[in-house]
C-alpha cells in the first residue's frame, strides 16, 4: 500500500463520511503527520497473542515456541509495528482467553458462522488443504468425496473437518489427537485418514510411516486470527492490510518454502 493511500485510509477511518480522497485540502504533509501519529499510537498499544500446539505449524522445544506459523505471525507483527507477547495454551483455553480478555488474539482458528460474532478477524493466517490418505498397501481410488461413503474415516476430537465430514453422514472415527491417526492407519484400524496435508506429511514422517499421496484432496480451510472485540479496530485493519501485502509480495510463500511445508 502506498503512503498516500495509507494516509487516506486512516483519515477515512477516523472521519468516515467527511473525507474524500479527491479533496485537495488533505495535503501529503498533513497526511503523513497523521499516519505517523496513528502508527505511534499503535506502537504504544500492545497485543497478547495466544496460540496452541499444532505441529509442525506451531511447535515447542522447552520455552521456545516455533514453527512456520510463528514465523508468519512474527513477521506480520513486525511489519505492523505493534508490540506483542506470545503464549501457548490448550486450544479451547486459548479460544476462551481471546474471547473474554481485552487486547488478546488467538490463532490459528477456523472462522465459522457460530464464532463470527465473538471476534474481530484477521485472515487468512493459514490456508490448508485436507486430504484422505489410504494405507500404502491398500489403494482406495476416490473420484469424489461421496466415493468415501463406505469407509471409516479417521479424524480427531475438535477437528472442524471431522465435524464437516460427519455432517454429511460419513462414518468418522475420532482419535484424541491427530498424530494418533498415523498409527491407526498403519494398523488398518481406519480405512482413510482425513488430515490437512502439511500435518499428515509431518506426522507420518515422525511415525516413520510411508504415507502415499492422498487419494483425494477434498476440502480447503482458511484459518484466521480472532481478536477480542475490544481490540482497536484500526489496529485490526492495519494488521489485516499488512497480511494481505505479505501474500501479494510472496513473503508468506517464501516462509513456507524455508520450512519445506507448502500445502
Amino acid at each position, binding site marked *: 500500500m502506498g503512503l498516500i*493511500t495509507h494516509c487516506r485510509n486512516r483519515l477515512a477511518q477516523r472521519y468516515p*463520511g467527511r473525507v474524500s480522497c479527491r479533496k485537495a485540502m488533505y495535503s501529503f504533509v498533513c497526511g503523513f503527520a497523521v499516519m505517523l501519529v496513528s502508527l505511534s499510537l499503535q506502537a504504544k498499544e500492545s497485543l497478547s497473542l495466544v496460540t496452541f500446539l499444532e505441529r509442525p505449524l506451531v511447535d515447542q522445544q522447552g520455552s521456545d515456541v516455533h514453527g512456520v506459523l510463528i514465523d508468519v505471525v512474527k513477521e506480520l507483527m513486525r511489519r505492523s509495528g505493534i508490540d506483542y507477547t506470545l503464549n501457548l495454551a490448550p486450544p479451547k483455553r486459548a479460544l476462551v482467553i481471546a474471547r473474554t480478555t481485552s487486547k488478546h488474539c488467538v490463532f490459528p482458528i477456523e472462522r465459522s458462522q457460530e464464532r463470527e460474532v465473538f471476534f474481530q478477524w484477521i485472515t487468512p493466517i493459514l490456508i490448508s488443504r485436507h486430504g484422505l490418505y489410504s494405507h500404502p498397501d491398500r489403494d482406495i481410488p476416490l*473420484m*469424489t468425496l461421496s466415493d468415501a461413503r463406505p469407509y471409516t474415516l479417521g479424524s480427531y476430537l475438535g477437528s472442524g473437518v471431522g465435524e464437516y465430514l460427519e455432517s454429511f453422514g460419513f462414518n468418522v472415527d475420532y482419535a484424541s489427537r491427530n498424530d494418533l491417526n498415523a498409527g491407526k492407519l498403519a494398523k488398518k484400524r481406519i480405512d482413510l485418514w482425513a488430515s490437512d496435508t502439511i500435518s499428515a506429511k509431518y506426522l507420518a514422517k515422525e511415525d516413520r510411516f510411508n504415507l502415499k499421496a492422498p487419494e483425494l484432496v477434498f*476440502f480447503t480451510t*482458511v484459518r484466521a486470527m480472532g481478536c477480542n472485540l475490544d481490540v482497536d479496530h484500526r489496529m485490526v485493519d492495519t494488521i489485516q492490510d499488512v497480511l494481505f501485502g505479505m*501474500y501479494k509480495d510472496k513473503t508468506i510463500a517464501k516462509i513456507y518454502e524455508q520450512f519445506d511445508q507448502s500445502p
Partner: protein
Amino acid sequence: MRTHLRGKSSAVKYALSFCLLAMTGPQVASAADSAIAKKWIEHEFSPSTLTKQQQMDEMAWFAKAAEPYKGMSIRVVSERIDTHWYEASVLAKAFTEITGIRVIHELTGEDDLVKKLQTQMRTGENLYDGYINDSDLIGTHYRYQAVVPISDFLEEQDSPIVLPTLDIDDFIGLSFVTGPDGIIYQLPDQQFANLYWYRHDWFSRPDLQAKFKAQYGYPLAVPKNWAAYEDIADFFTNHVKELDGKRVWGHMDYARVDPSLGWRMSDAWLSMAGAGDVGRPNGLPVDEWGIRVIGCQPVGATVKRGGALNGPAAIYAVNKFLEWMDRFAPPEARSLNFTEAGEWVGKGQIAQQIFWYTAFTAAVSKPDLPVMNADGTPKWKIAPTPHGAYWDEGMKLGYQDAGSWTFMKNTPEKRRNAAWLYAQFTVSKTVSLKKTMVGLTPIRLSDIMSQAMTKKSPELGGFVEFYRSKGRDVWTPTGTNVPDYPRLSVLWWRHISDAVSGKLTTTQVMNNLAEAMDDELAYIAAREDMICKPVLNDPKPESYWLEKPGAPKAKRNESPKGETWSYEEALSKWD
C-alpha cells in the same frame, strides 16, 4: 462500452447450433468417449429437454473441447445445498469420465464461501479455479473488476471453449448477474426464491374459513398485504391454538445472532415492506438495502443523504419482524438460525411463514412428514409474498438466490478455461433438467416449461406455477447498488442483533445501521481501487428527502385493512 450477448442468440441461431453439433460432434468424439457419454445419458441424464442424439452431440463437443486440458485437476467450490451435492458427487464424476479433466467440487457454508472468494481477491492466492457465488455480489464484481465476465467468454468469436448450445437467453436469472454496464459477470447455476408458505389444507377448512371471516370480516386465503398476514397469524396463534390435538402457530421465523440473522434482513425483507423505489430488479435510485445511487455511484443509506435505511418503511419492516416473533411465533424461534427454521414447518405446527426459502422444498416434501398427504402431494402451498404498507406497484417483492459461476482474473488462464468447461457442463441442457428435478433450483426456462415439470408440479405445492409466472422476475437478489457485499453485509446482523436483544429500540438500531452503512461506504471509497466508487451526498434535513416522491418514503398508515386473495389470483397477478 461492450454490450452482452443477450438478444444475439435467437431461436434460429440456437437450432443452427444443434445442426452444427450434429454435423461435427460424432466425428470428433472417440468410440470410447461415446460409450462413456452414452452410459451417463442412458442411466443418469434423464429427463432432459434434449433428444438422446442431441445429448450425445453435446457430450461429444465437451470431449473434444476438453482435449487441451485432459489430465488436469481443477478445484471449484459452492455452498452446500442439494443441487450442489448432486453436482459434486454426480456431475463432477460424469465430467471427469467424459472429458478427462478431474474436478474436485468442494461444498461449504455460504458465509465461508464468500470469505474464500474475498481471500482470493485480496491475497492473489488461487484457492479455487471457479466459484458458484451468489449473484448478491454483482455490485462487488462489477466495481472491483476482479472477475472475468462471462460476456468475455461468450463474445469471443468461434471460441473452442464456448458450448454452441449454451443458449444464454434460456437463463431466467440473467438480469441478476448483469452489471450496470450491460456486461454479464456471472453464469446462473441454481436459483431459489424466498416466498410465502402456508397450510393450504387448513386454509381450506370450512370451519376455519367461517370463524376467520366472522372475526376479521374477509376470507381466510393467501394474504395480499402484511395486515392480512398479521390477522392470520393472530387467528392461528391466539384463537385456533390447537388443531388435531397439536399446538399450532400462525407465524414462524428465526433470530439467533449469527450471520444468517443478517440475511433475514438483507435478503430483501425491506423490499417486502416497501422501503425502496420502483424499478426492477432492485429499485432505482434507492434499492431494498436503502442505498441511493446517482448513476452507478452509491451516495448514502441514511435518509439525510437520500437513502432509506433509517426511513419510516425500514423501521416498520424491522418492527414487524420483532413484533410478529414475540406475538405469534413459537418460543423456540428466537434461538433458531436460518437452516433450522426453514425445516421447522415440516413438523406440522405452523400455519404460514412469510419468509421461507424454496430451497427447503425437498426437505419438507418427505413422505413421512405430517405436512404431506398419503398420495405424496403436500398439504402446503407456496405463494407470492404479501407486501407491506410502503410497497408500490412496480417494486420488487422479495428475494431470490442465484448461485452463479464466477471466475477470478487471478486464476491461471488454463485452469480457468478448464473450470469454465465444467461450469457449462453443469448447466448444459443435457443435464440441467435432471439437476432441477433433484435440487428444485431452476435456471432455464426450457426446464421450467418442460413436460417433466408439469408432471411433477402436483407434488411441489405451487413451486412450478410460481416459476412459470412472471413472479420469477419480481423476487430478486441483492443488486448493483451494493458496492462491496462482503464488507457491508456484516453490518446487518451486527446491528439488528441489538434490536433482537432489546438493547436498543428499532429506531436507534436503524439509525446506527444507516450511519454505519454510510461510514463504510466512505471507507470503501477512500480505501479501495474500484470503479463507480461511493461519493456520499452532503447531508440535508430529512424532510427534504421525505417530501420528494419515491424512497425514502414519508410515514404512511401502517395498519391498513387486511386483504386476501385466492392462490390463483396471487399467481396470475404477475402474468
